[in-house]
């Protein structure tokens, strides 16, 4: 019976991490549903971007208050994880405060974790107030109703509870150390939790142990649960921000990709030696490539990774000129819709032995309306605003391409503009022979 806690702990750890691994596999399968895209270029620049933007949070501080609070939570999260390592080892080995042998370094570490934990609590409360009391515009847009709102708050509650458990655990431990209880070696400094100690003053040694153990267990189980919550939440960004910034666009923002399938056809059309009646090549049995995107499988995998990385902060939407002037378009919604549709496709595959069975739905119209797509000015403000290098514009353009090239469904005025270009080489109906008249006017 002596090893029962160790065994229970090991099982909890295996189940927690196992479930998480299963979700990661699903995540990666879904992302790979996207088309291939070559992002193998310029590795040094990519690493640099990841270090600067994801690790260094350089784009977060563009908005100083949110940026600073976010850095506190982020640093708190990363550093307090050192403590989680100790907790895991203690749990598996049946030890208590295994790292306490580090002596004064340990005291310093525990002390800093406590201060960070307090700062995280403060930041989380500020975040909650911004979302629920001040109701900052970008958090209450139409696409934030329902689950996205609940999800946002849920993450804050979980973080608050985890930090409180951590401090409670330390307070009880500290008190037990003072009482000279067995196993509770004197280790650590408790600059924050010492203020909780008076609340525990009246408790007996056994009650204190109960409090300490409960907090310890709930804290680590909470962390494992949170790990598994990620996949169902916008909070995935804590992991995906890193690959996403690595694979983010390196070219000038104004540069859109040139569709290769179109290039091939245009070259053929312009080649005077091409035989228009030539039979298609023998091996050309594949379906002709679809132009643009009407569903998530038509997008590339970086765009799908973008969708899972989005944490719905809404900085893109708040910078979008169309959104600011009351149009339906919200770049954040483009990302959320892409993710939601991708999840739907993934579930469809799970239910059908890994094969996607057409469900009569698609990203276009069922999720993203044409009105949204045509409202975009392609100004790149959303791309610029994103703190984790997401490119909503590339999805909008890909879907416009589908509308125009596969469906001939551009707005009438744009069709006129395009036939002018075809007929007289300008978006207006002027004679090409008049192109130089401006010189003598």
């Amino acid at each position: 019976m002596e090893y029962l806690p160790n065994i229970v702990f090991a099982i909890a750890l295996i189940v927690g991490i196992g479930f998480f691994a299963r979700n990661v596999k699903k995540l990666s399968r879904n992302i790979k549903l996207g088309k291939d895209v070559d992002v193998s270029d310029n590795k040094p620049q990519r690493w640099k971007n990841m270090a600067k933007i994801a690790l260094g949070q350089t784009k977060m501080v563009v908005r100083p208050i949110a940026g600073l609070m976010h850095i506190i939570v982020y640093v708190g999260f990363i550093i307090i994880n050192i403590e989680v390592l100790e907790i895991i080892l203690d749990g598996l080995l049946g030890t208590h405060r295994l790292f306490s042998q580090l002596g004064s370094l340990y005291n310093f570490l525990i002390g800093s974790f406590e201060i960070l934990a307090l700062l995280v609590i403060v930041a989380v409360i500020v975040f909650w107030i911004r979302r629920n009391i001040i109701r900052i515009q970008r958090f209450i847009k139409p696409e934030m109703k329902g689950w996205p709102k609940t999800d946002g708050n849920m993450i804050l509650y979980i973080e608050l509870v985890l930090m409180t458990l951590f401090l409670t655990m330390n307070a009880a431990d500290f008190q037990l150390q003072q009482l000279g209880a067995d196993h509770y070696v004197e280790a650590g400094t408790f600059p924050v939790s010492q203020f909780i100690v008076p609340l525990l003053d009246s408790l007996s040694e056994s009650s204190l142990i109960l409090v300490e153990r409960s907090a310890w267990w709930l804290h680590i189980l909470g962390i494992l649960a949170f790990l598994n919550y990620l996949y169902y939440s916008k909070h995935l960004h804590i992991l995906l921000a890193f690959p996403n910034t690595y694979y983010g666009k390196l070219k000038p923002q104004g540069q859109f990709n040139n569709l290769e399938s179109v290039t091939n056809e245009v070259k053929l059309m312009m080649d005077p030696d091409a035989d228009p009646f030539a039979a298609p090549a023998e091996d050309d049995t594949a379906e002709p490539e679809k132009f643009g995107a009407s569903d998530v499988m038509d997008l590339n995998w970086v765009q799908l990774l973008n969708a899972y990385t989005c944490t719905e902060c809404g900085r893109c939407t708040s910078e979008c000129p169309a959104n600011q002037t009351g149009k339906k378009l919200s770049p954040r919604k483009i990302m959320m819709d892409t993710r939601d549709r991708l999840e739907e496709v993934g579930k469809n595959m799970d239910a059908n032995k890994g094969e996607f069975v057409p469900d009569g739905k698609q990203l276009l119209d069922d999720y993203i309306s044409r009105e949204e797509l045509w409202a975009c000015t392609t100004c790149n403000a959303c791309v610029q605003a994103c703190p984790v290098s997401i490119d909503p514009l590339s999805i909008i353009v890909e879907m416009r391409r589908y509308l125009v090239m596969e469906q001939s469904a551009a707005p009438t005025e744009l069709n006129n503009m395009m036939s002018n270009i075809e007929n007289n080489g300008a978006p207006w109906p002027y004679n090409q022979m008049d192109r130089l008249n401006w010189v003598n006017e």
Partner: protein
Amino acid sequence: MSEQLKVKTMQEFMAEGKQPEILFWVGSAGSYDDRAKKISRAFVKLLNKADVDFAVLGTEESSTGDVAKRAGNEFLFQMQAMMNIELLNGYEIKRIVTCDPHSFNTLKNEYPSLGGNYDVVHHTQYLKELIDNGRLTITGEGYKGKRITFHDPCYLGRANSVFDAPREVLSKTNAELVEMKRHKKTALCCGAGGAQMFKEPEKGDMDINVLRTKDALETKPNIIATGCPYCNTMMTDGIKAHEKEDSVAVMDVAELLANSQGL
């Protein structure tokens, strides 16, 4: 007809067996739009003053296809691009200058992978170059005592990180430069990009150009400067919406520089 501009076509250069220093890509707006034609003329006056040996394609020029591409018509874009590239490569063009940030962006970034490799500069960059190497000397009071605010075109600024050239050229006019709250990387679009220039906006509660001119008017300018023919149209309309067309002018950087020199 105003004073004669010296403009030679590539065909004329070819006939003389010569190559120009640079090709001026006029663009569809610069060729046909009444307001933008004035910008083309102002820019040419400066080129003439600096004795630049430049050429235009004239009636051989055709839309870059940029607006078709932003609208989603990749096919039309690439048709236009390949025709233009054939022409440009045939003339062995090395360097291109244009007053249109949209042409600038697509020629510079999107033509190379289709076979068109040129050194492409925006006219504000080229003017700065001419001033810096002493070919264009700027004298006089210029716009001293006037407040000018520069509106960053999306496809020049955010899209290609050209922020300083237009401001440096403007500073040569001795005007007082004031920045809007949102400028450079965070500048708000004028509303014309992404083919919006050619269609009615979607339903909303305001037009984007009205919002952007509000930004500009908050700086209490005498002049709103732009570096894009489409921005120019949008800002001019925006000023009218705010009923400020009598007190605030919308002008291109090239026009301001040309005017400051009495050209």
